[in-house]
């Protein structure tokens, strides 16, 4: 298929689905910082443990960790002791945080746009989307200033006008913002809400 054919042909549903999946995966947060910190903790714990074990094997223990104190405390401790329970709960809590970091989708730095092409992934920054939509709202006659807030599933456009009465301004702004949004075609459906601030009479 040539490029022109590709541009003119209706999108193949399977390819669209694959494109959607690829786009979502491409812009999924990498979780680099949590991963780096978890790796660093593992390395630290392993390094201390390895140093202790090696020094014990060669016959001159380093005793970096207060092993004797810890052992004498632990000797008398029971599983129901408050301190043991708190430590267990903290450990389980850290585990839950790590699991939620792995499972929850997180917020991406890029919003994927619909291309219907698995070989082309396009993303727009949330700031760029806000800028494009506020610029569209400001193109409507009577709008002095527009600000856009981007939620997970909705967009709120707050418009300031010098007009004193409602008229059709909210509808016009909403229509213009929807038109620009459909032109951009974000992969995720976004509802548009308009909030107009009129001039004081």
């Amino acid at each position, binding site marked *: 298929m040539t*490029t022109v054919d590709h*541009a003119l042909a209706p999108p193949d549903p399977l390819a669209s689905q694959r494109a959607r999946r*690829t786009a979502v*995966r*491409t812009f999924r947060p*990498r979780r680099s910082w*949590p*991963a*780096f910190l*978890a*790796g*660093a*903790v*593992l*390395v630290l*714990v*392993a*390094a201390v*443990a*390895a140093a202790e*074990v090696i020094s*014990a*094997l060669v016959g001159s223990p380093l005793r970096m960790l207060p092993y004797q104190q810890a*052992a004498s405390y632990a*000797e008398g*401790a*029971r*599983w*129901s*002791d408050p301190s043991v*329970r708190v430590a*267990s*709960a903290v*450990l*389980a809590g*850290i*585990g839950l*945080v*790590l*699991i939620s*970091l*792995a*499972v929850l989708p997180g917020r991406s730095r*890029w919003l994927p746009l619909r291309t219907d092409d*698995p*070989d*082309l*992934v*396009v*993303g*727009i*920054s949330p*700031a*760029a989307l806000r*800028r*494009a939509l506020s*610029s569209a709202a400001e193109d409507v006659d009577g709008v002095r200033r527009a600000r856009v807030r981007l939620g997970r599933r909705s967009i709120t456009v707050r418009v300031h006008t010098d007009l004193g009465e409602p008229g059709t301004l909210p509808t016009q702004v909403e229509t213009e913002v929807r038109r620009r949004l459909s*032109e*951009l*075609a974000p992969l995720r459906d976004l509802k548009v809400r308009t909030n107009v601030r009129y001039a004081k009479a």
Partner: protein
Amino acid sequence: MSRGRRGRSPARGNRWRLGALGVVLLVTGGGALTLGWRLAPQALIWDRAAVESYVAQPWVLGATLAVVLVIGLLGLRWMYIQSRTDTVGRLRLEPGTTGPGSGPGPDGRSGMPARAVQDVVVDEVSGYQGVRRARARVTTSVREPHLRLDVTLGDDTDVAAFWRQVRQQAVERLRSALELEHLPTVVRISMAAPSQERELV
């Protein structure tokens, strides 16, 4: 990318490892909590004599050392993966392929500096309507390269028309020059305010 290849992005691996570490901590902490709550609230958490007789066995310290070394190496590798970049410095070409700067590389194989490809793409894309800044990077693999394009557009630019032009012209030309079947591309779009020039017009 289009066939599920994720290049060298660590996103999926990070999620798996964070999830696995989270499960280990949750099971350990949760297990200790359950012991304190229901199973053995009055049991001692540490039996010194049993631990010391266990540690006294000749193989225990060696096995412990092996385990902590493996954990430490996995942690180091995990940290290294976060800092690794997915950009490619040189492309490996099929014999007979010609392109900017193509020729035998230090290893004697036919290749091309990725920078030459990037410059060609940036030159072309910078000429498209509405483009303020462009930056291209060849990523993922020397044999099956991907292209990453970061662009800043004017906030009134027709974004869909822009990425279609990228696909039909810049990417298509590069793909056919490199004699590749696919050239998966990621375009990341930011936006800037209208230029002074446009405002004066």
